[in-house]
């Protein structure tokens, strides 16, 4: 499967990649986006099977990316890895069609719990 990792922090993209590997999902093709606009464009261009996105990014927020994709008819599996976690954000994410909401800091165990049903 192809996974797109969207985060404006390069270090955090590396940590997400490393944690995916630690959780046993190291064999998938990875694509990276450094802001929300790139995440949107690369999702349409690269057609990943899964998007793992930060919430607060330059150009477009993660939920804006998700809403824009859904408005265009794109149904890619999409979820958030973010330091911000409020009930209103989780509700907004679910309403937009997000599959998961992982809070930073996270662990490989949390990745395993969330991604095993998605990535197998």
């Amino acid at each position, binding site marked *: 499967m192809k996974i797109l990792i969207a985060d404006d*922090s390069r270090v955090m993209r590396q940590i997400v990649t490393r944690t995916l590997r630690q959780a046993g999902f190291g064999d998938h093709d990875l694509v990276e986006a450094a802001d929300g606009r790139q995440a949107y464009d690369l999702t349409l261009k690269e057609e990943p099977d899964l998007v793992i996105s930060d919430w607060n990014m330059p150009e477009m927020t993660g939920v804006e990316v998700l809403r824009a994709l859904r408005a265009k008819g794109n149904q890619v599996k999409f979820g958030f890895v973010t330091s*911000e976690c409020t009930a*209103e954000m989780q509700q907004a994410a679910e309403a937009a069609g997000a599959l998961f909401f992982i809070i930073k800091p996270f662990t490989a165990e949390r990745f395993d719990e969330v991604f095993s049903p998605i990535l197998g």
Partner: protein
Amino acid sequence: MSVDTVPTVEDLTEICDQVWASYLDPEGLNPLLPVGPMAGIGEMFAAVSITGSWHGHVVVTCSANAARQAAAAFLVMEPEEVSGDDVADVLGELANIVGGNVKSMLPSGCFVSLPHVVTNPGASTRFPSAVQICELAGTWLDEPVSISMWQSNGDRAEVRAA
């Protein structure tokens, strides 16, 4: 919001314990050891601003060596291998993680900014319209580290008037 809902140093400690366990000290060998206030340690600085139903800043300050050690820990590299960009990225992400978690403790309707990072040891960073309301200061790998919250004066005036 009432003063009681503002996160405390205990809340900052709980957030930082999670950050250290996940990224800075996963083996549990080098925890952040709390000490008293550490004015003037700010060689490196990162902050996020919170606006909305609460106004203020979450600030991470540390020595240059602590910042380099933090970048190395995040990236699982040796300290001498990390670049200046790595250090800035990690400091900003530290402020972002702490700030995001602080936001979850505040009344609804808050927004967290993208991080602002200063890595020039000679730079001076001030918040002229805010006062520090709590600080978790400590040493990590024998280097000074401080995580603090600053509340805007206007916000405090509103709280007092409420």
